[in-house]
């Protein structure tokens, strides 16, 4: 096949070419040709696939060996609870309408009490905890971000001039 790019035969498959053969997209003809003619690369590819398939099989056997929970009672209990709550609301609404209870207007004192209650959870976090949580949130966001920026940061693909900007704010990078 003279039309194939035979430069690949001078060396073995690069990481990028090796990954391309395995990523599920249609196999490029030049890579296919290399694998057809180069035994070391073919054997390496086979070892990779077999090893991953073995782990896949072992992990599935492991998860199959775990006990299956029965979620039916949980679902039934949840359904019953939501039915009871709906009925309670319906009865309460009927009573309010039937007895002609005036609309609830909180007094100044009650408003103050509500504010205090609402303020409590925020006071529970110290500044130090908030700061470390914020830092952790940023690392989590970077690690789990559905948007594209993480490869840039993760693999340091950015141009040197961009590096500081990228490190300064993950949010800014996501917006780009």
């Amino acid at each position, binding site marked *: 096949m003279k039309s194939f790019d035979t430069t690949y035969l001078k060396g073995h498959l690069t990481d990028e070419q090796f990954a391309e053969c395995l990523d599920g997209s249609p196999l490029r003809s030049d890579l296919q040709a290399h694998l057809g003619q180069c035994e*070391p690369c073919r054997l390496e590819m086979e070892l990779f696939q077999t090893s991953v398939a073995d782990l896949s099989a072992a992990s599935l056997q492991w998860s199959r060996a775990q006990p*299956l929970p029965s979620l039916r009672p949980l679902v039934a209990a949840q359904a019953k609870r939501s039915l009871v709550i709906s009925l309670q609301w319906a009865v309460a609404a009927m009573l309010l309408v039937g007895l002609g209870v005036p609309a609830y207007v909180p007094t100044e004192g009650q408003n103050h009490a509500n504010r205090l209650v609402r303020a409590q959870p925020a006071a529970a976090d110290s500044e130090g905890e908030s700061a470390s949580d914020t830092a952790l949130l940023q690392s989590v966001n970077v690690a789990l971000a559905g948007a594209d920026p993480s490869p840039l940061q993760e693999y340091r693909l950015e141009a040197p001039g961009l590096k500081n900007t990228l490190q300064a704010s993950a949010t800014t990078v996501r917006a780009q």
Partner: protein
Amino acid sequence: MMYPGTGVSVVTELDDIDALVAQYWPRVLRYVSYSINDADLAQSITQDCFLKAFRGRASFRGDCAVSTWLISIANNLIRDQVRLKKFQFWRKAQATALDVAEMASVLPSGESSPESRLMVNERTEQVKAALDDLSVNQRRVFLLRFFEGMDLEEIAQTTGMPVNTVKTHLHRGISTIRAKFGGKA
């Protein structure tokens, strides 16, 4: 990947939560366990996944396999857990690993001689160790490709990542694992 006979069979399957669990629990549990590397939390997330799927079963349109739909829900829950629980989960996930010894004791039955079983055992542990070195996103993408047999497009849909991002994570993951096996490049 169209789910065959979307009409009656899927509705029946989704209407019985324990039947759903019986058929799909192992695959979802495996995916979650290996993604977050924590067996206990994986149990709880997998249970939430099935409860959520059951409650939202009316929204399943059958345009993908049930397992793909369940794994998409699991992916969202993994993210929610990280954010809602003020990262306790994240701290724990980084600290506790899935029990490799327990996993390695259950090997594929195809290899008969003790020597070949030992070799398979070694290789399997090698891949597992290499997986631990991947980032969460690389690992999720790698698992969806090689454990779930999804292509780039399907992985993108399941994770909500753009296809190019999926490809980048997958290629990096493959290269890392290739290097562990003594790759050339």
